[in-house]
C-alpha cells in the first residue's frame, strides 16, 4: 500500500502543466474582455430599450442564464459548423468550419455566456450614476458618447468593480470546460498527462492548486483596484478647521 497516494506528484505535476497555462490564460482574458464589451452593449440596450433589439437581448439573457455553460459550449461547437454549412448551401459559398481554430468556439461560447450575467450588473452600475452629473455633462456640451466614456463609465466602474472581479474569477474557472471544443487547456492537458500513470487524483489536486492561485491573484489585484478607484470618496477634510481657530 505504499503507493496509494503520491504526495510529491502533486507538485511535480505543476511544471509540466505550465505549458498549457498560456491557453487557459488566453481563453480567460480574451473571453473576459469580449464578455465586458458585449455585456456593456446589452446593458445599454436594457437601459434605452430600443424596439426589437430589447426583446432580442431579453431572450438572449434568459436563454443563457437558463442553460448550462457546458451545453452552450457544445451548442457553439456543433452549431457554428452547421450554420456555415447552411450558408454554403444557400449562397453557394465555400466556408469550411474545419479551418476555424477550435479555440474560437470556446471564446464565443464563454464570452456570450458571461456577457449575459455581466449585462445585469453593468446595467445596475450605470443606473447608479447620479442623473445630475449626466445632465451637467450635457449642459457643458458633452455628447452622449463623451458623457458615457468620461463620466458614466469611470463612475459605474467603481460600483461594478467587485462584480467585475467575480466575473473574472468565474471565467478563469469556466475555462476548465473548453476541452468540449477540443481546446487543450490545463485541465485537458492534466488529463492527458495523468493518463500515463493513472494518477488522476494527484493531477486534479495539482490543477486545484493552479486554479486557486490564479483566482487568488485576481482577487488581490481587484482589491487593490477597488481601493484606488475610490478616489472620489476620500474622507471629508475638516474644512472648518480654520474657522474654529478664529473662533
Amino acid at each position, binding site marked *: 500500500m505504499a503507493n496509494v497516494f503520491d504526495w510529491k506528484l502533486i507538485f511535480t505535476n505543476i511544471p509540466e502543466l505550465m505549458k498549457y497555462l498560456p491557453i487557459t490564460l488566453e481563453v480567460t482574458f480574451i473571453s473576459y474582455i469580449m464578455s465586458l464589451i458585449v455585456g456593456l452593449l446589452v446593458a445599454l440596450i436594457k437601459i434605452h430599450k430600443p424596439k426589437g433589439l430589447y426583446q432580442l437581448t431579453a431572450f438572449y439573457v434568459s436563454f443563457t442564464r437558463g442553460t448550462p455553460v457546458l451545453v452552450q459550449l457544445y451548442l457553439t461547437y456543433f452549431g457554428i459548423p452547421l450554420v456555415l454549412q447552411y450558408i454554403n448551401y444557400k449562397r453557394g459559398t465555400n466556408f469550411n468550419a474545419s479551418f476555424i481554430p477550435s479555440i474560437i468556439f470556446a471564446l464565443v461560447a464563454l464570452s456570450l455566456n458571461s456577457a449575459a450575467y455581466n449585462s445585469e450588473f453593468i446595467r445596475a452600475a450605470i443606473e447608479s450614476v447620479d442623473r445630475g452629473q449626466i*445632465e451637467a455633462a450635457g*449642459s457643458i*456640451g*458633452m455628447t452622449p458618447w*463623451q458623457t458615457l466614456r468620461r*463620466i458614466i463609465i469611470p463612475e459605474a466602474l467603481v460600483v461594478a468593480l467587485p462584480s467585475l472581479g467575480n466575473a473574472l474569477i468565474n471565467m478563469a474557472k469556466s475555462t476548465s470546460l473548453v476541452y468540449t471544443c477540443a481546446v487543450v487547456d490545463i485541465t485537458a492537458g492534466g488529463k492527458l498527462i495523468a493518463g500515463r500513470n493513472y494518477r488522476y487524483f494527484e493531477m486534479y489536486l495539482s490543477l486545484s492548486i493552479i486554479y486557486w492561485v490564479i483566482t487568488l491573484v485576481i482577487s488581490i489585484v481587484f482589491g487593490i483596484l477597488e481601493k484606488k478607484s475610490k478616489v*472620489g470618496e476620500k474622507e471629508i477634510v475638516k474644512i472648518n478647521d480654520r474657522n474654529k481657530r478664529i473662533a
Partner: protein
Amino acid sequence: MIEIKGLHKSFKKLKVLNGVDLTVEDGQVVGIIGASGSGKSTLLRCIDYLEKPNSGHIRFDDVDFDVSRATKNDVNYMKSHTTMVFQQFNLFKQKTALENVMEGLIIVQKKSKHEAKEIAEKYLDLVGLSDRADHYPSQLSGGQQQRVAIARALALDPKVILFDEPTSALDPEMIQEVLKVIQKVAKSGKTMVIVSHEMNFIYEICDKVVFLEDGKVLQEGTPAEVLVHTDNERIKQFVSKVNFIETYVNQYNI
C-alpha cells in the same frame, strides 16, 4: 440676445410651460421668480435644451428657429452657448475641482491640457478656491462645491449662464459665499438668468425680474416694479409670504 416666444412644454399630460415669452438682452441679469411648480426650472432647462420644448420660437444670436422644426445645429448651438449651474451642484464625483473645470475645456472645446489648466486655475481663483483645486467634491462643503460648479460654467465662456436655484440646497451660512460669487460674475457683465427664492438677492442684482405663474409670465419689469410696486394681488401675496418686504425694506430703507 435671447428672444423666446410662446414656449410650451408638457410632461405627458402635465402642462408646465404654457406659452412663455422671455427676452434676455446681452449683459442683462434676469431673475425668474414664482411658486414651486410654476415652471421656472423647466424654462431654464428648455433654454439649455436639457428638456426639449414642445412648441414655440427661439431666437438666440445666430440661430432663429421654431422648436418643432429645430435642426441638430440649432440644438447644438443652444447647448454649447448656454451652461447651467444646478441646485445640487452636480460636480463630477471622480474628478478634482480643477479637473471638473478642465473637463469641458478639453473634451468639448478641444483645448490643450496646458491651456485648459491655465483657464481652470484662473476661474477657480475667481471663485476663491485656488487652494482647493486638488480636492474631490466629497472633500468640499456645499458652498465650495457650488462655487466650483460656477467656475466650471464660467470657464467655458458661454453666452448665457443659467442658475437653477443655486443656493436652495445650501446651509444658511454658505449661501452668502455663493451669492457673492454670483454677484461678482453679474458685475463682470455676463448675461445671466437666475431662478432663485432669495428675493433680496434677486432684487439687488437683477436688471429685470419675471414672475412666472402656471407656466405663464404674470408680470415682468424692473425688480422694484415687480417686487415692490406691483398691482397684482397674486404677486403681492407671493412677495409677502417670502418675507421680502420686511427684511429688505428695513435694511435698505426703500
